[in-house]
């Protein structure tokens, strides 16, 4: 046996047990010695790389590429803290340059910050290196002053963050700035400052990263003065002139009792941990379509907030078939790293798996819906409602012909095994699926765009494979013509009966031509109008938290995928060809009405960036999710039945001093329709090729079931992992032991579902919890 035989290492690492190797080792002392030396090295590396304790990780702190993870304190900001924040002026600070920690000294000493009765323990915050090259080397601090929706200012704080440091505000607030990622530090004795992780003026970033979490009814927002009071320092938070008017305060940040001892968080108080949003036009949709309901609020999320049906009877959202969020979670956990909290998309995790119920429709409808109610496994007093949607199936051999342009990023950054190599493997799988009547072109871009394959027939496999195999990653990412060339080729081959699509394969370094993200989105939309869609396949680590890919694919009526393994590549290739490419239902959305006589509170789990205003459900001009053939989508609601106390402790917000704190009158019997039903789920979509929507609805009476079907239990287990990873305040007591047993019981023999067990184990190890 040769010393270069990798099986030697495999034996040392305990993964090789063959008799042949045992014999070889016994027969050859030199080999034996080599094995022992490797063993010693392996042991040493195992010690050096052992997981750090859960609290300290200096030895393993990542260096090198910029990371944009929010400071860890975010995790501890629950929804109830936001109650107080929403009522106050918010000042946010964002780091936009590398630098030393020293400039942040005053903050690092902060120990705790209290708003109302809620105190937050603070961690020292470091000046991050995010975006360093772009903004120069100095550590600058960007301050966004957010008073109320529609009013944003920014300012630079050049040195440090002493409470009395002067702040020079820019004359004009940047329009459409959004801030997200909040950390709280005390300013003076009684006030707090919100410091945040990210700042963006890209409309697309804002729309997709951040849900509008501060809601003000239209008439109130309209009465707001457009001016921001002058602010001389960071203690602006205490400036009385900047406090929102009482009318707002009465809406924002109040809890109302549900009359049974539990406090129901007002939907308007829904400031999620780490999210804050204030573009001027985000709140202009206040008009309600139903007379007399102007005091009702839509479900704007986020997941961490329970809503009362008396105040928010309707919950509306667009369906989401993306699974990119799951790819990110798997990849990060596989590395032993915690996925960033704001990269967690619970619905994408749940929808990553296949479900068998409901069966695909046979009635001639494109979609079928089923609603199932059983106990929430993490809180048996609560009910978990699973709404399952299945799209009609199409045999792969009956799919329509495709006209594909594969746009591949071959810049230097793609030069690693998990990128270009995996892209090539994906493309080979795709090539296997093509037929004679398909057309395929390949455009690569690096320093410039080139066309290694032009308008080949789907069965010219040799030609296609040669073009794939010849790809090499090198050079810059300045292929200005790349995406344009791709669309030109696609346009040349548009024909009746064929689906035209550009598939972009990239690591997210998106410098594909048109200079700004806005122009790119415009181009994608315009080409969608020409009948050419866009799907994005993301590779490598930097796709983590890159919402631009999702933005682009949404505008191109496509799907964003994160590809981290060949198995996942195979799954999405088949899905892309038979599903996404053949859309059966457009703008699919769900609206659920809850019966207040049965439901004390509810929350939609996930879909945080997919929520719609109540009236959007019936508005066919609102873009929502498109479902391809064979897609299944699951949505989960956690429901607190009447008679069970609602999460969210009383006293989270002080009683108001200048307003009566009486509880609103309970609706009289005449106002509530007596019904045994728990809820009504409504599904609406546009069949392909039609402008008129189809609508189906289903009313559900809670059967009182404890254990749901296998699909129900499995979806619950995936959601539970997502909640755990996103620091959900209402599932804190759920241990990984419980989570694992949920997954074990529901996974069955299914190989794909078995994969959840490994993820649960990884998450347990990475989070360092029981």
């Amino acid at each position, binding site marked *: 046996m040769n010393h270069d035989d990798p099986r030697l290492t495999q034996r040392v690492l305990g993964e090789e047990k063959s008799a042949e190797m045992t014999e070889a080792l016994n027969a050859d002392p030199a080999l034996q010695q080599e094995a022992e030396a490797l063993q010693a090295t392996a042991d040493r590396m195992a010690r050096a790389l052992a997981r750090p304790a859960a609290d300290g990780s200096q*030895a393993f702190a990542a260096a090198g590429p910029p990371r944009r993870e929010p400071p860890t304190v975010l995790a501890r900001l629950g929804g109830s803290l936001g109650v107080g924040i929403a009522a106050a002026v918010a000042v946010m600070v964002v780091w936009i340059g590398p630098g030393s920690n020293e400039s942040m000294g005053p903050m690092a000493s902060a120990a705790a910050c209290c708003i109302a009765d809620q105190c937050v323990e603070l961690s020292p915050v470091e000046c991050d290196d995010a975006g360093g090259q772009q903004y120069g080397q100095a550590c600058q601090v960007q301050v966004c002053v957010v008073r109320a929706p529609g009013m944003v200012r920014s300012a630079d704080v050049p040195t440090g963050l002493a409470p009395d440091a002067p702040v020079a505000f820019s004359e004009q607030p940047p329009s459409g700035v959004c801030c997200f990622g909040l950390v709280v530090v005390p300013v003076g004795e009684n006030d707090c400052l919100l410091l945040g992780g990210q700042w963006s003026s890209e409309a697309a970033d804002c729309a997709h990263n951040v849900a509008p979490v501060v809601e003000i009814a239209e008439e109130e927002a309209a009465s707001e003065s457009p001016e921001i009071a002058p602010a001389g320092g960071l203690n602006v938070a205490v400036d009385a002139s900047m406090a929102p008017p009482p009318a707002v305060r009465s809406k924002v940040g109040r809890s109302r009792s549900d009359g049974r001892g539990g406090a129901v968080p007002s939907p308007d108080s829904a400031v999620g941990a780490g999210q804050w949003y204030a573009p001027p036009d985000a709140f202009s949709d206040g008009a309600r379509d139903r007379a007399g309901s102007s005091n009702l609020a839509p479900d704007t999320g986020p997941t961490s907030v329970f809503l009362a049906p008396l105040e928010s009877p309707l919950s509306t959202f667009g369906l989401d078939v993306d699974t990119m969020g799951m790819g990110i979670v798997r990849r990060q956990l596989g*590395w032993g790293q915690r996925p960033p909290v704001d990269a967690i998309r619970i619905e994408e995790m749940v929808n990553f798996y296949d479900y068998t119920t409901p069966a695909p429709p046979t009635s001639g409808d494109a979609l079928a819906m089923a609603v199932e109610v059983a106990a929430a496994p993490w809180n048996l007093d609560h009910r978990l409602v699973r709404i399952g949607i299945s799209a009609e199936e199409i045999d792969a051999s009956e799919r329509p012909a495709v006209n594909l342009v594969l746009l591949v990023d071959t810049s230097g950054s793609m030069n690693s095994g998990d990128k270009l190599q995996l892209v090539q493997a994906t493309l080979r799988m795709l090539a296997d699926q093509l037929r004679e009547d398909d057309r395929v072109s390949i455009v690569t871009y690096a320093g410039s765009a080139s066309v290694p394959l032009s308008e080949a027939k789907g069965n010219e496999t040799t030609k296609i494979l040669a073009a794939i195999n010849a790809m090499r990653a090198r050079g810059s990412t300045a292929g200005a013509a790349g995406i344009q060339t791709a669309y030109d080729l696609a346009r040349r081959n548009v024909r009746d009966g064929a689906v035209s699509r550009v598939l972009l394969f990239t690591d997210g370094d998106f410098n594909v031509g048109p200079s700004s993200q806005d122009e790119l989105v415009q181009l994608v939309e315009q080409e969608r109008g020409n009948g050419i869609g866009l799907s994005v396949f993301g590779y490598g680590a930097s796709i983590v938290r890159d919402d631009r890919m999702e933005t682009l694919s949404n505008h191109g009526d496509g799907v964003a995928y994160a590809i981290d393994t060949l198995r996942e590549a195979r799954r999405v290739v088949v899905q892309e060809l038979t599903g996404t490419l053949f859309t059966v239902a457009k703008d699919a959305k769900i609206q659920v009405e809850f019966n207040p006589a049965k439901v004390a509170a509810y929350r939609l789990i996930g879909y945080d960036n997919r929520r719609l205003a109540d009236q959007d459900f019936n508005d066919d001009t609102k873009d929502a999710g498109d479902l391809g053939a064979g897609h299944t989508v699951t949505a989960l609601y956690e429901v607190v039945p009447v008679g069970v106390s609602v999460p969210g402790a009383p006293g989270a917000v002080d009683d108001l001093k200048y307003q009566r704190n009486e509880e609103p009158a309970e609706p009289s019997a005449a106002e509530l329709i007596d019904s045994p039903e728990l809820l009504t789920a409504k599904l609406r979509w546009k069949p392909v090729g039609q402008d008129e929507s189809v609508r189906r609805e289903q009313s559900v009476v809670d059967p009182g079931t404890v254990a749901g079907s296998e699909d129900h239990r499995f979806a619950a287990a995936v959601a539970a992992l997502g909640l755990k990873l996103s620091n959900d305040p209402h599932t804190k007591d759920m241990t990984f032991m419980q989570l694992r047993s949920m997954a074990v019981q529901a996974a069955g023999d299914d190989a794909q579902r078995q994969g959840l067990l490994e993820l649960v184990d990884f998450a347990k190890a990475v989070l360092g919890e029981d």
Partner: protein
Amino acid sequence: PDDILPALAVDAADPAVDTEAIEALNQLPPRQREAMVLRFRGGLSYDAIAEVMGTSHSNVGVLLHKALRTLREELDPAPEGRAV
């Protein structure tokens, strides 16, 4: 961006950290480094590493073997009777 796996930062002041080992690891080619980290920090099996890295079981074997051989030479430069 080349971010397959960030280099590992070393806190030289911390006596508990095997600085030499980490630095030797950082010198490895990125794929070998990733396989090592997945194995020794992630505790992943060959199959799991293959899946995470999008490669084959045998390629993982090669990556780990080359990595360990290099590290052994870096960290313990006086091998006896080693055939090459």
